[in-house]
């Protein structure tokens, strides 16, 4: 199939939750190298609050994104609350009227999330942030939509782009966030936000693939 039903999206969200829960300790370690080590803990807390509150509820893909984003923004705080809150809520807003979501629709939603993020932070590709994961993922999906590529193949490409983007942060010097205070000393370590963004996008792609 080339699309999935927005109404069937609950398992995608639960997969994203599991992705974060399974990587709580890993994200803490990555963050601890040049950040303050709380990334895994706070992400896990926010995603788990969502799971606890909505696991027995019925919700669509976009409703789930909106609820998860709202919890991160209003209940978690830190840097990641406003960052992921904005991405997820703006993705949801861009897709809320859709019944069927295909590669073009998902590309638009993710692009809206990235655009929302860029309104609150000045980070660009190359600054060692989650933009390095998110931006190439958006590009790949947009190109796939324009090229009329199969959804499953496009999602695989997006996962590769996200992983490549995440890995690219290793050799960068941080320009934003707490790690930016370290200058050259931030080189050689992955960015925690780029890492969690890759986990979320990968889980989302896997969840969607199972519905196709």
């Amino acid at each position: 199939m080339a699309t999935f039903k927005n109404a069937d999206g609950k398992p995608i969200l639960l997969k994203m939750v599991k992705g974060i829960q399974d990587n709580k300790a890993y994200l803490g370690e990555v963050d601890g190298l040049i950040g303050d080590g709380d990334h895994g803990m706070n992400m896990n807390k926010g995603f788990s609050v969502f799971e606890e509150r909505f696991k027995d509820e019925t919700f669509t893909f976009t409703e789930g994104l909106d609820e998860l984003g709202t919890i991160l923004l209003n209940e978690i705080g830190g840097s990641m609350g406003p960052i992921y809150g904005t991405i997820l809520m703006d993705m949801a807003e861009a897709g809320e009227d859709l019944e069927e979501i295909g590669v073009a629709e998902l590309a638009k939603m993710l692009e809206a999330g990235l655009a929302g993020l860029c309104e609150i932070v000045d980070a660009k590709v190359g600054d060692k942030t989650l933009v390095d994961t998110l931006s190439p993922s958006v590009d790949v999906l947009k190109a796939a939509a324009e090229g009329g590529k199969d959804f499953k193949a496009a999602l695989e490409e997006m996962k590769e782009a996200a992983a490549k983007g995440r890995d690219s942060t290793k050799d960068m010097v941080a320009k934003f966030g707490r790690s930016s205070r370290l200058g050259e000393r931030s080189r050689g370590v992955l960015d925690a936000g780029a890492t969690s963004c890759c986990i979320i996008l990968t889980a989302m792609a896997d969840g969607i693939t199972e519905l196709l």
Partner: protein
Amino acid sequence: MQRILNNPDNIVDEMLKGFLKAHSDIVEATENPRVVKAKNIPEGKVGVITGGGSGHKPAFVGYCGKNLCDAVAVGEICSSPTAAAFLDAAKVADQGKGVACLYGNYSGDNMNVKMAVKQAKKAGITVKTVVANDDVASAPKTEREKRRGVAGEVLMWKVGGAKAAKGGDLDEVIAAAQKAIDNTRSVGIGLSPCTLPAVGHPNFEIKDGTMEVGIGHHGEPGIEVCELESAEKMAKRMVDVVVPDYPFEAGDEVVVLVSGLGATPVMELYVLYDEIDKLLTEKGIKTHKAYVGNYFTSLEMMGATLTIMKLDDELKELIDMPAESMGLKQF
């Protein structure tokens, strides 16, 4: 990990419950469980608020009280409060005269405050901000806007809170708080790492027998790791970083604040203070007032911070004004 805990994930909520009970004469709960307000806020004044991550006691809730902050937003450990908490703090503190939000320069706090200011505007509340950036070691002087806020925030709250209590309007409160932080420089030395209770082990290392000069309140690496030194030499290092940066000069009258980072015995802070005072006296810098104790900590990190603020007549009057909160009592 030798800590006093129930479920580490709930530590902030449980800490707040105890804090509100213990200091019920000074503070009270609000509808938002992550916003604490001062009791008996005088009518008709400009609101003064702050907020920040937990684990820095007495900061930030410890500076909620008389002639200090009217409301404080509380975040997770080492993590900014939500935009909603900053907004609710502004709502609680607003009396139609506007609100001064005086906070520290961290990316999370900057984003959440920015969103809260926008939402407050929609709700008809004017919020203006001062962002503390007193930590000399966190960026070169040419990039002062990148520096973190540390213990100098206490002096910023003292000055801003006093100005509002004296009836200053919003612009006057903001100007006084801005002047306070512009006149303030800090540096920290860390002797041991700290552990987030839910993580269970330290996320950075300071080897026994060494110390880190310029360390941040969340263990952000400093400018130099060296062998552990005597209090006399530590004081010299700190003074040599802080004094030339402003620069503080002979004839200046200053406030000196020496804060422990959490696990250093307070008696050692006085040993350090004595050495700092000798150096400042030698330089002809006159200490008008000194604060020594645990004013802005970093969980159970060992070490101390030195903060110096240059006074003028206005700042002196505001610093000398009485204040009452858990973290600062001055009569």
